[in-house]
């Protein structure tokens, strides 16, 4: 009871914390600490909204229809992919500036508005925030009627996710700049591909997109989401044990297009260039 609820907490927590930790590492690494409050603002808004909205659907008769819920989650995920993709290339352009040792131009490369930082953090956390909040409330309710184990498990899981994300952050900022960009960027490519597949799967469940039961593979028995490895993979890469063909194709296509674009070494530009 403790473990399986803990794994849900870990998974949901990782989905939210991973992108945020990379974003924070990136800002710290590039001396843009002044942007950090905007990260926490975005995260804060997402948490407040999720908690408020979760309370609404838990304690009142307000409901979203199933289609609305899935369309909303799926839509948010797709928007999140767009923003994370933007972040990937924004990191790449920064790497280019650094590669060209034009540290003075760093400011130009980082012309990223606070709004973008807020929205990105908001989406990273808000995407799964509602589901997590509702889950949290039901574990609180269970605690009220005698069993505190799910709540403890869930909190431990979230804490573990935050600890892992923090570990990733600490590890990441130890790298030298060039390596940092390559590794975190590449990691983000896979994360974004997972979020894309996940969003499409939501839309398939709502029957907005077809092909929910046309499976590419079904690893329910070999690598279940309910055990720690599956939960970790789901938390980090949005792995699904039953992956539909549409999901698989979208995932492969995204990685096949974005990863090479990201990894191709940009030509160093001479200082005189614009």
């Amino acid at each position, binding site marked *: *009871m403790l473990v*399986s*609820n803990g*794994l*849900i907490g870990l998974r*949901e927590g990782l989905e939210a914390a991973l992108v945020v930790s990379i974003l924070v590492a990136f800002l710290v690494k590039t001396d843009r600490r002044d942007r950090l409050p*905007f990260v926490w*603002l*975005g995260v804060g*808004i997402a948490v407040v*909204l999720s908690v408020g*909205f979760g309370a*609404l*659907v*838990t304690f*009142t*008769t*307000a*409901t*979203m*229809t*199933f289609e*609305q819920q899935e369309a*909303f989650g799926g839509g948010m995920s797709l928007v999140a992919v767009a923003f994370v993709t933007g972040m990937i290339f924004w990191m790449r352009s920064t790497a280019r500036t650094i590669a060209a040792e034009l540290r003075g131009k760093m400011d130009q490369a980082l012309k990223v508005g*606070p*709004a973008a930082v*807020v*929205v990105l953090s*908001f989406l990273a956390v*808000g995407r799964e925030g509602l*589901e997590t909040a*509702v*889950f949290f409330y*039901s*574990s609180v*309710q*269970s605690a009220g009627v005698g*069993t505190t*184990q*799910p709540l403890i*498990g*869930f909190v431990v899981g979230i804490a573990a996710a935050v600890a892992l994300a923090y570990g990733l952050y600490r590890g990441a900022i130890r790298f030298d700049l060039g390596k940092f960009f390559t590794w975190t960027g590449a990691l983000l490519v896979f994360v974004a591909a997972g979020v894309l597949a996940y969003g499409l799967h939501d839309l398939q*469940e*709502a*029957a907005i997109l077809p092909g*929910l*039961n046309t499976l590419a593979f079904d690893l*329910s*028995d070999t690598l*279940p*989401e*309910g055990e720690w490895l599956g939960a970790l993979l789901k938390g980090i890469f949005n792995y699904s*044990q*039953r992956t539909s063909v549409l999901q698989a194709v979208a995932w492969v296509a995204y990685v096949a297009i974005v990863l090479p674009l990201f990894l191709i070494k940009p030509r160093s530009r001479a200082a005189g260039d614009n």
Partner: protein
Amino acid sequence: MSTATRSLGLGSLLLLLAACGGGGGTPSADGPIAVEATDDACKVAKNTAGTGNVTFEVTNKGTKVTEFYLYAEGDRILGEVENIGPGLTRRLIVEVTEAGKLQTACKPGMKGDGIRADFTVTGDAKKATDSDAKLAEATKSYQRYVNSQADSLLTKTTEFVDAVKAGKVEDAKALFPVSRTYWERIEPVAESFGDLDPRIDGREDVIEEGLEFTGYHRLEKDLWETGLQPDSAAIADRLLTDVKEIVEKAKAVELTPLQLANGAKELLDEVATGKITGEEDRYSHTDLWDFRANVDGSQAAIAALRPVIAEKDAALAATVDEKFKALDALLETHRKGDGFKLYTELSEAEVKALAEAVDALGEPISKVAEVVAR
């Protein structure tokens, strides 16, 4: 956009979703249906419910994380709740709009097809009937439109044919675009009758397809280009026969709402491919009459569907109205007396502006079918 407004936007989106979900449907008479899920069983307290909001309280008494689904026929998901950890209770509220045989399923370990059980919903259909009634009304009202246009088509075509046969070239020329107006308004209906359409409305290009060049455009060529031919009268007679047949068929045809929506789009495509280019009435250059008529027909189909569109997608209804208005206004600037300017009197810029207005309208119209099918 400033940060604050953007986050406000997202916030209000959430609240909006909350609002539209709030109190949707009528709650079932009795409280929630308790579901006790374990690792190898799925005990649903009741296997029947009335239409409206059906609420399940799913308690996981097993050791594995579980999910609970409500399926309609063909495993269409009506509702699901995931991540029910051991010891947790989670609620699922599903709005079931019509009676039917459903299935409940628990999925211990979140895998496989789950432990299924039948679940029957009885009672009157909710929401759906309103839509169905509106759709039925839509087809009826469009049918009335088609009938009235078909009558006028027959009247005006008879006058046109008589003028041709009497050799009154000027009268015939004046009647040509007028009689075609009624034809163009209901063209999608007419097109569903196979070879009648090319016989009545085929252009000279049909010869390449091994067909005879007859109908309106053949007479148009005679009137404007070559002068009346020895067989003009025979062609006119045949046109009247064909029009009579199509009028009869058009009155009997029963269109589905989806066909209406697609017809509205087809009419605009007609405009974009034939009228904008000036190739439809290449001898008389009365393309704008046809253009106006196609837009009228499209508007009539949309007007019939409007209550349905407004209910299902108010924003789309507003967009469509607005784009129709814009196109109407633009077309009206080219009026001349009872009719329109000739195509040859339009400047290139004017044609381009018309094309853009048609495209701007075609885009929202193409979404109507999907909204109607919802």
